[in-house]
């Protein structure tokens, strides 16, 4: 299957290991990700806090580019994903007219293709994942963290359960890891509050990392660049808990060179993988 790949701003910078590990594992699975040409920022929370037209226009330009490539869009950032999907679904159900969006962005857009998150794409192919595992993640206790925008709001994401999602847990189990049952799965990390209200993000990220420590997790597993950065840089306690991307763990289990991704982290996850005999 071919997708128009939208790395998002963080995928180029703070979450580059998420971007490169995604490309590597998708290539191993035969999922072709073609990076979109000349994409722009989705507008994030700033656009939808400011103006509905601007929010739809920024996402709409990207959707139109993907549509021109005649492929569904695949995003790695849950926030980009949910913003893009909102515009796509509103055009599909007619609450935002095709004429209105096309005029805003100066490009035709008809909402003919879907928008999917990469976790949704890979978890739909569990058998293909299992076949590629050459180094099962035996003994690794992993806390799957979904955050907000993969599962909320339900009518936009259309993915898993809002309160107790399990798709990432099942993926981790199929990689051979031990997925911890824990209470922090869908709690908010504080998002872009990291820029304006550090103490709030410290409190929220601290609670999430404490919950993961409570169930003796070795790592928290993230599917979002901003959540990962918040959890890595704002968590509390002296025993820093590494926060890795699910795609990095897939790569490790597939026998790919995961070390180069792990080196990009602020909290070095290499010692915990060594301790479990996985590196």
């Amino acid at each position, binding site marked *: 299957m071919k997708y128009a790949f939208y790395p998002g701003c963080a995928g180029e*910078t703070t979450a580059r290991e998420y971007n490169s590990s995604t490309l590597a594992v998708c290539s191993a699975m035969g999922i072709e990700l073609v990076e979109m040409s000349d994409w722009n920022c989705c507008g994030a929370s*700033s*656009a939808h806090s400011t103006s509905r037209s601007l929010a739809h226009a920024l996402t709409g330009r990207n959707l139109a580019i993907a549509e021109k490539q005649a492929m569904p869009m695949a995003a790695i950032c849950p926030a980009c994903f949910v913003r893009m999907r909102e515009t796509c679904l509103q055009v599909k159900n007619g609450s935002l007219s095709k004429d209105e969006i096309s005029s805003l962005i100066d490009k035709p857009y008809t909402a003919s293709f879907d928008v999917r998150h990469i976790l949704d794409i890979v978890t739909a192919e569990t058998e293909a994942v299992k076949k590629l595992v050459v180094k099962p993640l035996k003994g690794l206790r992993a806390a799957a963290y979904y955050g*907000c925008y993969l599962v*909320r*709001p339900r009518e936009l994401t259309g993915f898993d359960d809002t309160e107790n999602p399990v798709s990432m847990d099942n993926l981790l189990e199929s990689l051979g890891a031990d997925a911890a049952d824990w209470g922090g799965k869908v709690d908010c990390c504080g998002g872009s509050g990291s820029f*304006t209200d550090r103490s*709030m993000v410290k409190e929220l990220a601290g609670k999430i990392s404490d919950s993961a420590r409570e169930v003796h997790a070795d790592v928290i597993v993230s599917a979002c660049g901003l959540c990962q950065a918040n959890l890595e840089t704002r968590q509390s306690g002296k025993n820093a808990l590494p926060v890795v991307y699910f795609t990095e763990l897939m790569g490790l289990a597939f026998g790919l060179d995961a070390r180069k991704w792990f080196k990009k982290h*602020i909290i070095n996850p290499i010692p915990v993988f060594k301790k479990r005999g996985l590196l």
Partner: protein
Amino acid sequence: MSTVHKITAASASAAASFGGSRVNLCYQCMTCTLGCPAAGRMEIHPHAIMRKIQLGEVQELLVSSAIWKCLGCETCYSRCPNEINIPSAIDELKHAAMSSGKAKSISAAFHNIFLGGIKKNGLLFELGLMLRLKIAMKDFFSDTFLGALMIMKGKLSLRPHSLRESGAMKKIFEKSGAGTN
């Protein structure tokens, strides 16, 4: 100011469509406030925001800091028994506060700076955003070590990006009437 709070036909009808939500359906069960990660920092809690919209007391909300504490995490919406899109109603308040110049929060300043960068570069330029924000917040020393570490790890770009389709962002901002400079 009158102390009698009453829902009128006009305020009920405004609440029914506020932000594309159905705020008129709120019966104050407080599920939103109980699950809200930011409620502890709001001077007006989410359920009280809904009530004030029903009562037509929107002006008070526009100058509040509570609406800017909302993280947009969508927990309230996913749990609301009446499926009221609370984050969308709060977004509507943010839009009105921004366009009337009543938004006094640092979050509003953040959104302006963020979007100003997107208008110029098409993509987020983190270093530029952080520097502008530091000036706006008069906070020059926090996270400098973290920033340096990120640069060393190649996780922050030193130069802004630019789109090949030049002028595309400017046009989009103009057409959508967003007053960011």
